[in-house]
Structures are given as structure tokens and as C-alpha cells.
């Protein structure tokens, strides 16, 4: 089947974005956006839908099987992983844009450095030995699964890069730490958690439905809120 990809491109950080279209043929039902982007780039010369020669399309990928988060982009208006987006589900004209909450490096490649800065700011690391308690295994496991892809931030009405609210890409990893930290040592993270996650979140859970890893965000959120906020409120009031 033949598809038209309508791609939002940008030469560099400082250039203006523009739209360019490409025709692609997909041979199987399994063909993904990642596969056709690679296919376009693997041609000796790249031509757009009007036959104009153009630069290769810059984008990021690594695992090509939904495990690394590199290829997150906005496809038909929805943030998702290009290696998980099957053409057959997207219609014959497909729009592709970079995630817009992050600075564009070029074309579909974005700088997600802020994700890591936020995790540093929130104190997302253990200071003591972990408990290794099997009752908590499931929470630890779920909280370890975040791809740092940024899809949840793209969809979140309250997140923007310069803001104080860090969103679920910070909540999920810190849920592991909150669950493991020794009570006495939790203070720094708890404080940061309230400031950067609990206070800013509208709890609409749009992020949960978009997460390509299918992380049980709600469960982690409730768990972390309990540890970081509700428990201390409750203890204080007692």
C-alpha cells in the first residue's frame, strides 16, 4: 500500500520549521513509521513527493522494538514511539512532527536533556542500601520501566520545560527510590516530590493512556503520594 508522510522538518535548532512530504510503499501490515523513515534514509538520494532532492531526515532510534524510548515523536497528533506505530493503523496520509515540548535539534530529533536535569533536581537516587522486600517487588519493577521517552510530558497540560512541574517522567523513577529509601533519609526527596510532582499534577491521567510502555502510572502515583505526602500529613495531624 502507498502512504504519504507529511513531515515537519527543521534544518537546525535556529532554523524555521517547514513541511515536506514523501511517498512510501509498505509491503507488510507490520511496517512501522520507524521502518519507513529508515527506508527513506537508506536510499542513495532522497527525493520528496514533488521530486525535489533533499537532505536525509534526522531522527533517533536504537532498539526498534519499544524498549529504549529513543524514537518518540508526534504521529497524527499523538505522541508515540515510531517503532510502535504501524502504518496500517494511521491512514494513507500520516503527519509526523517532533515532540514539541523539547528543543528541536534537527527534524524529528529533540533534546530531552531536561528529563535528566529534573531527575537530578528531585534527588532521584538511593542513599542507603535497599530493603529488598518481596512485597514491594511489583512497585520496584514497574517504577524501573520508564523509557524516558517524554510522551507523557508531551500530552500533559501542566508540563513545560522551564516549569516547576516535572511530570510522570520524573514521578515513575522516583517511585522506586521513595519506596526503598529509609524513612529518615526520605526527607529531601519527599520535599522535592511534593514541590515538583504532587503540587502540579491535575490527576487527569492523560499521561497514563499515552505511556507507550504501558506503565501503571496510577498505581505508582498513589503509592508515591501516600509515602511522600499523605502519610506525613496524617502523621503530623495525629
Amino acid at each position, binding site marked *: 500500500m502507498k502512504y504519504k508522510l507529511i513531515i515537519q522538518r527543521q534544518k537546525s535548532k535556529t532554523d524555521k520549521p517547514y513541511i515536506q512530504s514523501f511517498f512510501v510503499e509498505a509491503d*507488510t501490515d*507490520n*511496517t*512501522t513509521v*520507524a*521502518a519507513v523513515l*529508515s527506508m527513506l*534514509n*537508506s*536510499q*542513495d538520494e532522497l527525493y520528496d513527493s514533488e521530486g525535489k532532492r533533499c537532505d*536525509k531526515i534526522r531522527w*533517533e*532510534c*536504537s*532498539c*526498534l*522494538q*519499544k*524498549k*529504549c*524510548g*529513543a524514537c518518540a515523536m508526534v504521529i497524527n497528533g499523538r505522541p508515540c514511539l515510531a*517503532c*510502535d506505530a504501524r502504518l496500517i493503523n494511521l491512514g494513507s496520509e500520516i503527519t509526523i512532527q517532533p515532540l514539541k515540548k523539547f528543543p528541536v*535539534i534537527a527534524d524529528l*530529533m529533540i*533534546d*530531552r*536533556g531536561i528529563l*535528566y536535569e529534573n*531527575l*537530578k533536581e528531585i534527588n*532521584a*537516587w*538511593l*542513599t542507603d*542500601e*535497599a530493603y*529488598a*522486600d*518481596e512485597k514491594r*517487588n511489583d512497585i*520496584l*519493577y514497574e*517504577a*524501573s*520501566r*520508564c*523509557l*524516558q521517552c517524554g510522551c507523557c510530558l508531551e500530552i500533559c497540560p501542566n508540563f513545560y520545560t522551564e516549569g516547576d512541574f516535572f511530570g510522570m517522567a520524573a514521578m515513575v*523513577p522516583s517511585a*522506586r*527510590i521513595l519506596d*526503598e529509601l529509609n524513612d529518615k533519609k526520605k526527607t529531601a526527596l519527599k520535599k522535592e516530590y511534593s514541590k515538583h510532582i504532587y503540587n502540579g499534577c491535575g490527576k487527569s491521567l492523560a499521561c497514563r493512556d499515552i505511556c507507550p510502555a504501558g506503565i501503571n502510572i496510577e498505581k505508582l502515583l498513589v503509592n508515591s503520594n501516600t509515602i511522600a505526602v499523605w502519610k506525613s500529613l496524617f502523621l503530623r495531624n495525629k
Partner: protein
Amino acid sequence: MNKINIIGAGLAGISAAITLAEKNYECRLISAASSERAQSVMAEGGINAALDTMGENDDPIQHFQDTMKGGVYLADPNAVYELCINAPDIVKHLCSIGAALRIKDKQPILRNFGGQKKKRTAYAKSSTGKILMSALIDEARKYEVSGLIQRYPHHELCSLHIDNGICRGISIIDIYTNAAIDLDGQTILCTGGMNSLFSGMTTGTTINTGDVTAEAFYKGAELANLEFIQYHPTTISIPQKRCLISEAARGEGGRLFTVINNKRSYFMEEKYPELGNLMPRDVVSREIAKAKQLKNGCGRVYLDMTVIDEESWKNKLSDLRDECIDFLNTDPMKEPVEVSPGIHYFMGGINVDKKHRTNIKGLYAAGECACQYHGANRLGGNSMLGALYGGKKAAESAAELINEGCFAITDKIQNTCSSYINDQDYTIDKHTAEILKNALGIFRNEKKLSSAYDTLSNLCERRTLSERHKKRLVLARAMLLSALNRRESRGSHTREDYPEKNDEKFLKTSIASLNGNNIEITLRDIPEMRGNANEV
């Protein structure tokens, strides 16, 4: 005090960085993409350690013996011995930093993995690599904040500055801005396997090109055992690559079969009653390739996972099931899945000693880019272990020379970084991959290997190649020559024209080195067992 450069931020690189930071030494952790994108996050089945938590009387000596046997005795026994003795502490340390391995009574639960008679593989469903990486990334973050680890998370290595047998420093390029940076210091390479030589045909990531291995070779580092490439027996085809069906599926009871005269033949169980479907990977891959060619056979091999109980699917393999449904539209709980062998791991790579030093002073290698521990065939679950332990050893070796003054780029040598911008040549990559696939498949012979070598040599002369692709082709040719030179069959290297193992001549490491424009292959004795390793 000199900063140490670490290239690669997967398990090996992070392990090296944390080891240095714990000693209060500063390092730069440089990688083409952030740690979340490293191939290590893809590892599924688990990590080996003889923790003996399943009451099977396991111990590190048996782990050592299985690893040596699996590698058909081609690994340095002293290094393997240390690896296995230290494995339990490594896994305990992972638990202590909150890695979500499956545990019971505070102890990791262990599962069966190929080539091993005892349950020895700690795991987290089929996402073990991701779970370990998450814990280690958080651990490294602590030192990033304190300044001991300095990240360069979108930077590619262009050049190693080596003169007089000493690595003085490196040149890297910022992928975002194309800015080149020169950095002094000892350097630890942790850049993973050589996937770009087999572009689109491996289970691993597109980021691990093998370009760093090629650059090290080009600048005088020895490579070892390049001919040993692991074909994982059970992979499926998905867009642009092979996707792994973890060995854990067989560990939990999955059975391989083909159909002969309308009847299922469980060929592994029939031929190998003891380990059956869990024979080492080289054996299973060969048997699958043979089963596909049987007369009266259906020409296909399937993995029947319908026999696995619901409990195991839920607790151990849920992500694997999702993958089959996602990529194949097949529910493996209900239907068998068609599988074929696919390229999964490079046992060969940069030659290192037990302390992970290369033949160049101040240059180290660990993880999949290095050749250590796995001999002629790697056991499942040993590579994450080898990456973590190797990273640690390399860091300790670099720390020993931390105060030496010679690790500084003296002459700001020709900066080759600019040639690394926009130099991708997919046509040549595709071409190389086709040639190598034919010659370096599961079954090899002199004719196929020589003809591939000639074709690649011609290609080098004919085309104007970028620096990157020139080096890649040198690496590819070294791989072919190593395979040609080993006139025997051992582990993953099967020669149709030399079907027997020949210990007298070939119980040796293949060493590739570059002399001017000449690739030289020699055979080197395997170190003798010393000290404690000698007593087993």
C-alpha cells in the same frame, strides 16, 4: 589527578563509572545516546550467579566449569574463574541498590538458562537488563550531582590519540551541534557489539556500530576471536531487524519442533535427552538450521510455548507474550511461534587481559566490545555479568595509573571529527552485510569466506569511502580472515570443510592486528590456569 574517559554508557560503562566514583576518581561518561537507549536495556532473560538459592547445591566452581565448557575452553580460565567467584557479590550488590530482581525471602529467585545444569540466572520477568540499568542509572546520578561523573550523553567517538603504544586521549563530536572536543586521559571502551557489519540482521541496537572497535584496530589495538559470532536460536523477523524470543521461554518449558510427515518432531529432546531445548546456543542454532533442511520436513521450526503454565506467563514472561502479540499477531499461550537463528552476540572483540587492559597502555575495553570470558560461545546470562564485572576491572586497572603524567594529547593531532558528519553510506553497509551474512552464517567454508574477502577487498579499492566506512571494511575483512584461519569447528564457528574440533592446532586465541595496510592473523596460547583456578 587525571580524569578517565569512558566511552559507552551501557552496563559496562556505568559499572566502570560507578567503580571510579566510589574511589573518588573523576570520569567522563561519554555515549552516542543516553543510557536509557543502550543495548543493555534490551537484555531479557537474566544474569548468572551461583547464589544457590534454589537448593540445588550450586557453587561458583560449577558456574566456572559450565562457562568454560560452553565456550569450548577458548576463554582465559583465570579470568572466567574470577568472574564466577565474584558473580554472587555482583548480584547481591544489584539487590542492595534496589534493582527489582525477582526475590523471595530477600534472595534472588533463579531460573534455568541454556548450557547450565543448575538454576543460576537471576531475573526480572523478561526485562532484566532494563531493571538493572534503571538501578545503575540512578546510582550513577548520585555521582553526577557530586561532579565525579561527568556525562557527555550525545557524543560520538571519532578518534583515539595513540602514539608510542600509549593512549593519550580522544576526540569526540557532539551529535547535536557537530562541535568537536579533544579530551586527555586514559580511556575505557564500553561500546558494545559490531552490529553495523550486519546491518538489519541482528537482535541488538542500531547505535552499536562497532566503529569504535574498528578505530581501535586501526590505531593498533589487537582484536581477538572475531570469527565467533553467536546466532541466537530463537529469533523472529520484525521490521528492520531480528527480535529475540528469550531463552527464558525454553527455560520455563518451551519446546522446539519441526514437522516431518505431518508429525511433530521435538528434535532437540530426541537428540539431547539431558539438556534438550536448553543445550548451549551454538548447538541449538545448528540443530535448527539442520532441521529446516530435513527431507520430508516442513522446512520450518517452531517454538511451542503453549505448554508453559499460566503462573509463569504472568510472573516471568508477560512482556515476552506482549511482544509476540504486538509483532506477530500471535498469542504464544495459544499457538506455536515460528523461529530462526539470528545474530545476537559477538564473542570476539578488542583483546584484553584479565585486568581488561588492551595491548595499548592507558586503553581498556569491557562489555560486549571486548573479547573476554565467553570463548567460542557465550552462555545466556553471562554477558550482563561479564559487562558489569569487566567494567569494574577496567576501572580498577585505570585507577592504578591515575597519577601517571603521560596521558595527555601532545600534538593536537589532525582532528578527524569533521569527516564523521553526515557520512552515513547505507548502500555500502547493506552490501557488506549481505556479503558477510553469506560467508559468516552458521555453516562456513573456505570457498565462501575467501570469495567474500575478495569481494570486500575489491569494494575497498573501487569506491571512494568515508573514514568511517574504510575502517568498517577493514574490521569486516579481519573478521573473515580470522574465520578463514581457524580450520576447525568449535563453538559457534562451524566449518563444513573442517567439521572436527582440533585442539592441538586451534585451542588458541585468534589475534588480529594491523601492520601498515596488512591484516595479520596469529594464534596465541590461552593463558594457563594459575592459583586457585588451577585447583578446580
